[in-house]
């Protein structure tokens, strides 16, 4: 599903060159739940952004569904993000002036779905995250956990192949974090591949595989692999 081969990313300023990612090679299969861990500044969020095509890369290759994303035009990358990738951000990134319905509908509009199809998908996504009764609420009327569930609903409404979550529980208390993680588990069980950046070892252990990144490189240490344990 996801193949990274020798991928490198360099941030350049006038004075410094920072190697954010060095020679990353990863393979993620369909339906996997992968946790990306590592200390702050290690490059895990950068890796997630590259996977989400929000950032470009200098060397190596990235294949999504067997197709290289290197050299794709802005339009092709937009289509890729819209159709195959769902994003969940630490800060939720909801538009505060929009209702929950409008927030979730946003990516579906760019996909060109008809109004009826958009409505069906938004309502289904809201049901999935347990907020069907609050479709006309605004984000400010919800708790942090509920807002993150709306963000998840927005991410899954388009039925993406991959869900990229950047510290999805970073701004939540433990109870709400657990609810969000249960939701992600359920989405993963429904067949969606998930890559999640996290600092929390407990949450990382819920993943089927952990990948540790240190100083922009893959760590040799295998932290947890339930399949291997089994």
């Amino acid at each position, binding site marked *: 599903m996801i193949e990274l081969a020798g991928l490198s990313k360099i941030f350049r300023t006038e004075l410094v060159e920072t190697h954010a990612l060095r020679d990353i090679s990863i393979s993620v299969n369909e339906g996997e739940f992968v946790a990306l861990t590592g200390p702050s500044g290690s490059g895990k969020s950068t890796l997630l952004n590259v996977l989400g095509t929000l950032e470009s890369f200098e060397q190596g290759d990235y294949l999504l569904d067997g197709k290289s994303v290197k050299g794709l035009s802005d*339009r092709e990358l937009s289509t890729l993000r819209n159709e195959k990738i769902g994003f969940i951000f630490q800060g939720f990134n909801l538009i505060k002036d929009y209702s929950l319905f409008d927030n979730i509908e946003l990516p579906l509009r*760019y996909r060109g779905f008809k109004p009826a199809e958009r409505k069906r998908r938004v309502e289904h996504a809201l049901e999935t995250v347990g907020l069907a009764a609050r479709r006309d609420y605004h984000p400010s009327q919800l708790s942090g956990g509920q807002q993150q569930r709306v963000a998840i609903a927005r991410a899954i409404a388009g039925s993406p192949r991959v869900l990229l979550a950047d510290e999805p529980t970073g701004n939540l208390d433990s109870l709400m974090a657990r609810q969000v993680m249960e939701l992600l588990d359920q989405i993963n069980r429904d067949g969606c591949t998930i890559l999640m950046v996290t600092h929390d070892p407990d949450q990382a252990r819920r993943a089927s595989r952990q990948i540790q990144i240190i100083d922009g490189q893959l760590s040799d240490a295998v932290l947890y692999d339930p399949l291997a344990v089994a």
Partner: protein
Amino acid sequence: MEQLQYYFKISLISIKRAPLPYLLTVLILSLGLGMFFANATFYYRLNSDPLPQKSDKLFFPMMLLVPGDCDSGCEPPPVLSYSNVQKLGSSGIPTAQAAMYSSDSYVRLDSKQQPLPVRLRLTQRDFFQLFDVPVLAGSIWPDNSARYEVVIGKQLAEKLYGTADVVGKSLLVDDRHFTISAVINPWQMLPRLYDANNGSHISETEQLFMPLETAYDLNYMSATMSRTMDNTDYRQLATQGRTGALHQLQFWVQLDTPAQQKAYKDFMLQLAQSEQAAGRHPVHINNQLPALRDIVRYFGRESGDVKAYALVTLLFLVVCVFNASHLSLNRYISNQYEFSLRRALGASRWQLQQQLLVDVVVLTCITLVFALLIGAASIQLMNYLWPFNRLFASWDLSLLSALLLLSLCCSYLVTLYPSLRASFGALNQQLKE
């Protein structure tokens, strides 16, 4: 269509999010556009073609047919003597031709009534054909001979008689009895180019027309330009005006085809040569035949003030666009997070640009309303300060369309750079913040 409605909705939400900066942007842009538009109205009107269908067919012949040495420059005088007009009028080439000048007079219905001052145009029959003057009732003089008949404007007729049905009625012009032979419909030739040689083209058209020969018989002096090249007494038109070198007549000819125009130029050359040979014209030949559409420029009568104001208001508009653009940039940068989010969720740059084009349309519509209000107020102020400009203070569809186009361009410029900055920003940084 549904997507377009959605873009409008987003645009309005974005305005509601920060209404004051938006209002300030609109006001600054409207101020620049309104001031520019007010001046452009005068500029456009003053430079417009009042007879587009024939402005390239009407010509103003001028010849250096003067006795004695010419003054410095040796340019032909902008007015002709009666005898020169007779010579120029003898060609038989033009479709129509008329000599004319203007004078002042008083009119009233009877000797008991208070006299009303009016500007007279003293002219010949073809004047009305040359300048497409619309006749409401009656008939224009059948020839150019002297007669006590006048043509009157509808507005003056209604002012004097209370009705426009005045053909055949008597009118006292400077206490001489005249019969009204025709009434013309309200007519404004703006600018009044047939009087451009005198620099009087920005005043109203006359309301009373008298035969030229009658005017000479009655010693009507020119109210504009009169040059005596010999010892002719300019007050004795009846006895000396037709024979002396008293230059005060404007002369217009209609030459519809290039062949006519060439033939008339040849005729003017032959005339100048024969006059020279006869010793009536000792200086070199200098014939001019400017067309109506070039007449203001030919005589250098373009308004320097209006040009200067046009330049100043244009610069002011540029400053306003820069300021509005700066405000707009701040507004878009504060919304940059949303642009990045939309791109992360799958919007292409082109889809964002579509959204921004709708922003441009919304900004244009709001700005246009404010600009029209400011423009109208500015015109009122200019009319108050320069009342003679009042005639040129009207808008038509082409002017309004030009303002709409200009507003659209300015709104686009104000939105373009900020939107590019916003839609080309680094996605990950914005979303992280």
